[in-house]
C-alpha cells in the first residue's frame, strides 16, 4: 500500500510539474502570438486586394477539393469556389469514389460533360475513372476516381493541376471572397523560399450563407459548436501564430492550405499511411528541406479565412478528435528521429518536442491527475496546498488563455458583435469545466487506436449551409 501511495505521489508530482511547464509555455506562446499578430496586422491592413487582382503579381492557383459523399454541400461549395476573387485559378473537384450522388449532382447542376486532359503521374493515387468539365465553367475540372481516401484524392488533384501552386480545400468548407488573395501574400513577398501557407479556420455553424458566401457572421446556437469556436480561436490565434513566427509550424489545416506544387511533389505528395495527411505533408516538407540544407519558409496568415462545419453531436466530435490524435501520433512516430533533434532546428526541438510532451504525454498525465489528485487529497495523502495548486494550474491558466485569445480575436476580426464576444467570453470559462476534460479522454482514445493500429476516418455528417429565413 505504501508503495502504491508513493507511486501516486510521484504521478501527482509529475502532474503538477507538467501543468507548470505547460502554463509557462502557453504564456510564452501568447506573447509570441501577440507580437506576430501586431506585426502581421500592419501588413494585412495594407494589403491592396485590388492591386493584387490587377497587377499580375498573384501566381495562378489550382484549388483542389477532395469530395467523398458530399452530395449535400458540394454544388454550393463549387459555385462558391468559382466565384472567388482571384485573377487566375482552376477548381479541381476530386470525387473520391463517393457512394452517394456527389458526382451526379455535380453533373446535373453544372451541366458537365466527359473530357480528356493529358497528365503525368508524379505522385501515386488510385485509378481515375473519368474527367468532367463544362464550357460554361472553363475553370472547373471534376475528377471521378476509385475511393482511396483524402490523401489519394489530393494526389490525383496534384497530378492533374497545371499551376505552380495548389490550394487544398475541404468540400464542406467555404472560402471568403478574398481568402485566396490574402493567403497568397507570403508567396508575393518570398516567391522563391515560400513553400506553404496556412489560413485560419472559422466555424460556419450559425452563420448566414448566401450563394456560397458567408454574409452574416454569428456564433453557433448549439453549445458543442460554440465551445469549439473558442477552441478554434485559441488554436489558430495563439498556437498556430506562435509556431509560425518561430518557424516551427507543424500543421497547415487540411481544410485550407496553399502549397508550392513542386515542393509537394518533391516529398511524394500526400502520404496514404496516416489519417492526419495535413500534418504529415508539412512534417515531410520540413524534413526534406532541412535534410538538404535548403532555405524554405512556411507561414500562417490569420486573416485569410476558411469557414468549416463543426460537428454538433458528441459522437461525431469524438470520432473527429480521436482521429486527429491518431493522425498526429502516426506522423510523430514516422518522423520520430526529428523529435528533440537539433539538426531539425526549431521544428525538431520546439515543435515536435512540444507535440510529444503536451499532446501525447499531456492528456495521459492530465487525466491521471483528474483521478489521482482528488483521490489522494481525500485519502489525506496530499496537502490542501498541493490540491489547491493543482486546481489553480488546471483551471485558472486555461481560462486565462482562452480569455486572452479573445483579445487576439479582437485584433483580427474587427466587427464581431459585442453580444457574441460576451458569449465567447462565457464559453472561454465554461470550456475548462468538462469540455476540455472530455477532449483529453478522446485524445486518450486516439492514442489507444494508434497503439492498436486502427485505420480509417469514420463517418462524418454533412448538412446544408444555413440560409436566412424565407430563402
Amino acid at each position, binding site marked *: 500500500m505504501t508503495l502504491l501511495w508513493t507511486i501516486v505521489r510521484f504521478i501527482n508530482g509529475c502532474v503538477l510539474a507538467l501543468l*507548470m511547464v505547460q502554463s509557462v509555455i502557453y504564456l510564452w506562446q501568447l506573447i509570441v502570438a501577440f507580437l506576430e499578430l501586431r506585426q502581421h496586422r*500592419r*501588413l494585412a*491592413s*495594407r494589403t*491592396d486586394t*485590388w*492591386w493584387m487582382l*490587377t*497587377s*499580375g*503579381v498573384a*501566381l495562378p492557383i489550382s484549388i483542389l477539393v477532395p469530395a467523398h459523399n458530399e452530395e449535400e454541400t458540394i454544388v454550393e461549395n463549387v459555385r462558391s469556389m468559382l466565384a472567388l476573387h482571384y485573377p487566375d485559378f482552376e477548381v479541381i473537384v476530386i470525387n473520391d469514389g463517393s457512394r452517394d450522388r456527389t458526382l451526379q449532382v455535380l453533373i446535373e447542376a453544372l451541366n458537365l460533360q466527359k*473530357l*480528356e*486532359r*493529358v497528365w*503525368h503521374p*508524379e505522385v501515386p493515387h488510385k485509378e481515375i475513372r473519368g474527367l468532367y468539365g463544362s464550357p460554361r465553367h472553363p475553370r472547373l475540372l471534376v475528377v471521378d476516381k476509385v475511393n482511396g481516401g483524402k490523401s489519394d484524392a489530393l494526389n490525383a488533384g496534384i497530378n492533374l493541376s497545371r499551376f505552380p501552386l495548389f490550394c487544398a480545400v475541404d468540400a464542406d468548407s467555404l472560402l471568403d471572397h478574398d481568402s485566396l488573395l490574402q493567403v497568397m501574400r507570403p*508567396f*508575393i*513577398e*518570398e*516567391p*522563391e523560399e515560400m513553400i506553404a501557407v496556412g489560413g485560419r479556420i472559422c466555424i460556419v455553424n450559425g452563420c448566414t450563407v448566401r450563394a456560397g458566401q458567408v454574409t452574416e457572421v454569428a456564433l453557433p446556437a448549439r453549445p458543442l459548436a460554440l465551445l469549439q469556436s473558442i477552441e478554434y480561436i485559441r488554436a489558430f490565434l495563439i498556437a498556430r501564430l506562435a509556431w509560425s513566427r518561430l518557424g516551427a509550424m507543424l500543421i497547415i489545416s487540411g481544410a485550407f492550405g496553399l502549397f508550392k506544387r*513542386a515542393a509537394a*511533389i*518533391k516529398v*511524394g505528395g500526400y502520404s496514404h499511411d496516416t489519417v492526419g495527411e495535413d500534418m504529415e505533408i508539412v512534417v515531410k516538407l520540413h524534413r526534406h528541406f532541412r535534410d538538404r540544407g535548403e532555405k524554405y519558409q512556411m507561414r500562417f496568415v490569420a486573416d485569410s479565412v476558411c469557414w468549416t462545419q463543426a460537428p454538433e453531436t458528441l459522437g461525431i466530435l469524438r470520432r473527429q478528435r480521436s482521429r486527429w490524435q491518431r493522425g498526429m501520433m502516426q506522423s510523430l512516430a514516422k518522423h520520430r528521429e526529428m523529435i528533440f533533434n537539433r539538426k531539425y532546428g526549431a521544428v525538431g526541438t520546439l515543435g515536435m518536442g512540444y507535440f510529444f510532451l503536451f499532446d501525447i504525454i499531456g492528456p495521459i498525465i492530465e487525466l491521471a491527475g483528474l483521478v489521482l489528485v482528488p483521490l489522494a487529497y481525500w485519502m489525506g495523502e496530499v*496537502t490542501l*496546498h*498541493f490540491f*489547491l*495548486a493543482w486546481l*489553480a*494550474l488546471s483551471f*485558472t*491558466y486555461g*481560462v*486565462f488563455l482562452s*480569455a*486572452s485569445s*479573445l*483579445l487576439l480575436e*479582437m485584433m483580427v476580426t*474587427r*466587427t*464581431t*458583435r*459585442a453580444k457574441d*464576444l*460576451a458569449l465567447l*467570453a462565457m464559453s*472561454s*470559462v465554461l470550456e475548462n469545466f468538462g469540455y476540455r476534460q472530455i477532449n483529453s479522454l478522446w485524445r486518450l482514445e486516439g492514442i489507444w487506436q494508434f497503439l492498436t493500429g486502427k485505420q480509417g476516418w469514420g463517418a462524418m455528417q454533412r448538412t446544408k449551409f444555413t440560409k436566412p429565413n424565407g430563402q
Partner: protein
Amino acid sequence: MGFYKLIHWVSLVLAGATLAILLVVVVRQAFRNRRVRRDAARRQSLMALALEYIEEPEFIPAFKAQLKPPDQRLLLQLFAELLPKVRGDYAEKIVQLMRAMGLNERCLTQLRSPKWWKRADAAAVLGWFQEPRVIQALETALDDPQVGVRIEAARALARLKAVQSVAGLVARLAVVDASHSLAVREIFRSLGPSAVGELMSVLESDVPDQVKLLATDALGHIGDPRAVPALLKLFHSPRNQTGDAIHEHKARRGRSYSDRSQPTNSSVALRLAVMQALSVLVDPRALDAILTALEDPVWEVRAQAAQCASQLGSPAALPRLETLLHDEHWWVRFHAAEALFKLGEAGVNTLLKVARGTSATGADIAAGLLREKGLVP
C-alpha cells in the same frame, strides 16, 4: 509551502486578469462597433456628396463647408480605395477634388509620420499627384529605413512616370532583401518604355544576377522590341552558356529525379528569364536563341523555349519540337506538344505522326494532347 503559496497568488492574479480582460473585450468591442457603424454611415454620405461635387467643381467650397474635422481621414481612405479603380477624366477629377480639400498636403505631412504604415499609406496616395514637390518627397521616401515605405514610394513614382534613374531604384529596392519580392518585380515592369535604355544598361552592368533578372523580366513585360538585342546578348553571354550549363546539368544528374525541379544557379534562372521575356516580346530576331534553348541541358529552359516557339509561330522550330516530344521530362514533352498544336496544321500533322509512332513516350503525349484538344476520339 512558499512554493504553493506562490502558485495560489499567481493564480488569483491571473483570475483577476481574466475577469478584467473579458470585461475590457466586451466593452471595448461595443464602443468599437458603434464607431465602425458611425464611420460606415458617414463614409456612405460622404461618397454620395463627393460624387455629386466631382461633377460640379464650382461647388467644392460649399462641399468643404459641410465637412467635419474627422471627415478628412474618411475621405482620404475613400479616395485611396477609389482611385486605383477609376480611369482617365474621372480619376483626374477626384485628384482635383482631393487637392481642393488639401488632402495632398495631409499626405505630405503623413509621409513624415513616425509610424511606417502611415508613411507607406501616404506614399501610395501621393502617387496620384503630379506635382514637383510630391515627386521630391517621394524621392526622399525612397531612402526610408522601412522597405515597405520604399516600395510604395517607388510604385508611386513609377505611376507618375517620374522615376529619375533606374540605377537609383535598383540601389534602393533591388539590392536589398526584398529584391525577390514580386511587388518589386511589378514596379520594374511598370516603368514603361522610357526606362528601356536604362534597363538594358543594367543587363550589361556589374550588378548581382538577381537585379539582372528583374531587368530582364521588366524588359519582357514592357514589350519594347528595342530590348531584344540586349536580351539575346545576355542569353548568349559566355557565363550563361555551355560550361556553366553543362556543370548545372551534371549537378542535377547527380541528384534524384524528383529533385531536379528547381534551377540550382542563377545563370539558369537568367536563361529562363530571357526565354520568358522573349515569349512576351515575340520577335523573329529571337529565333536562333529559341532554337538553341530548345536543346538546353536544363529542362525548365527547354520547356520555356517550347512555349516561346509556339508564341513566335515559326515552322523552323518544328523539327526540334518534334524531338522534344521524346524528352525525358514530362513538362518539356507537354509544352512541346502544346507548341506543335499552336503551330497549326503542320504541327498537328507532326503530333498525329508521333502519336502513331513506335516511341511510347512521344506517342503518349502526342495522342493525349490530340485527345484533349478533341482532334482524335
